[in-house]
């Protein structure tokens, strides 16, 4: 399955006004993005092989953050901020989520994926792979 298909679910849910729909929309937007990048890294040869069930999100975000490629570093900040919104949506039940929140999270996830697809080059991928691999080894993730 293409993880970006989760964006279709997010789009459907954000048209509703009930809290469960809006919060779930936020979650689907985040998972579309984090899984898209996990697959990108996997295609480059970066996969968390040691304890794959632990720190799976951190692995993706940190590989991008320590990649030395500005576009990827920027993507990691988007992902971490989306992760925060998703945690707010799933755990902070006292916060009221609006359609604006769900809509903005959806647009951010969509833009993040599209920008990365457009701006990454083979040369940048190579730099990303080398730097992220070094970081992942240092963290004992690979």
């Amino acid at each position, binding site marked *: 399955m293409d993880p970006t298909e989760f964006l279709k679910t997010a789009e459907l849910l954000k048209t509703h006004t009930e809290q469960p729909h809006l919060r779930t929309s936020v979650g689907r937007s985040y998972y579309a993005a984090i899984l898209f990048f996990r697959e990108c890294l996997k295609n480059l040869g970066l996969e968390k092989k040691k304890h794959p069930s632990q720190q799976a999100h951190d692995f993706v975000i940190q590989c991008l953050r320590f990649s030395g490629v*500005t576009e990827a570093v920027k993507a990691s900040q988007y992902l971490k901020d989306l992760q925060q919104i998703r945690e707010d949506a799933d755990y902070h039940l006292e916060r009221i989520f609006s359609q604006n929140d769900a809509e*903005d999270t959806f647009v951010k996830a969509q833009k993040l994926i599209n920008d990365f697809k457009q701006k990454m080059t083979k040369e940048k991928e190579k730099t990303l792979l080398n730097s992220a691999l070094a970081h992942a080894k240092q963290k004992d993730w690979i």
Partner: protein
Amino acid sequence: MNNFSGTLGLIELLNSLPLTCSNSCYKSPGASADVGNISIMINSAATQSVLAFNPPEPDLVPYECTRSSGVLAFWGDDGEDIYSFENGKIVQEAGTSIEEFAAPVSQECKKFCDLRGLNSVLAKCLVKVKEIFSNIEKLSAELDYFRDNQEEDSTHIVIRVEVSSNQKTALRNYDRWTCWMAKNVTPNDSEFFTLTVRRV
């Protein structure tokens, strides 16, 4: 409960400092009660207090017996000064914790920044948020952690901004923020920061 057995450098540091304190206590991170007393190292003629924090540290590797890093807080009637130390040496001068932030910052967040040496980064980030975002209704910083992250301490700073802008403006400003972060804050520091933008 933790005690001084794992903080050899702390004792050495305390003995080397020109302290004049009459009473003292030692607290572990997150602990509400005192867990030890270090008054034996403090000059009895003093009028100030001392508080020592152990920083969160990864597990010791085999054959490694102790680490010595953390934060010492000295306070008197005129306010609080913070010293950070590593291997018994001060790495942060007194007074750097009294950072002027451009927005309300929770006490836990300030202490976290002191421990990690992130005061200046947070101050810079808050100023930048004010500069980048228009129509700010509310701006603050607090601590949070990722609940699904089971392995590592995922405590981080959340900067929360509420704006009365339209979507296009808010998202364009957010994008500018991420560009600025990527170019101006090192990965080792930026990994402790998240920003949420809400349109109200």
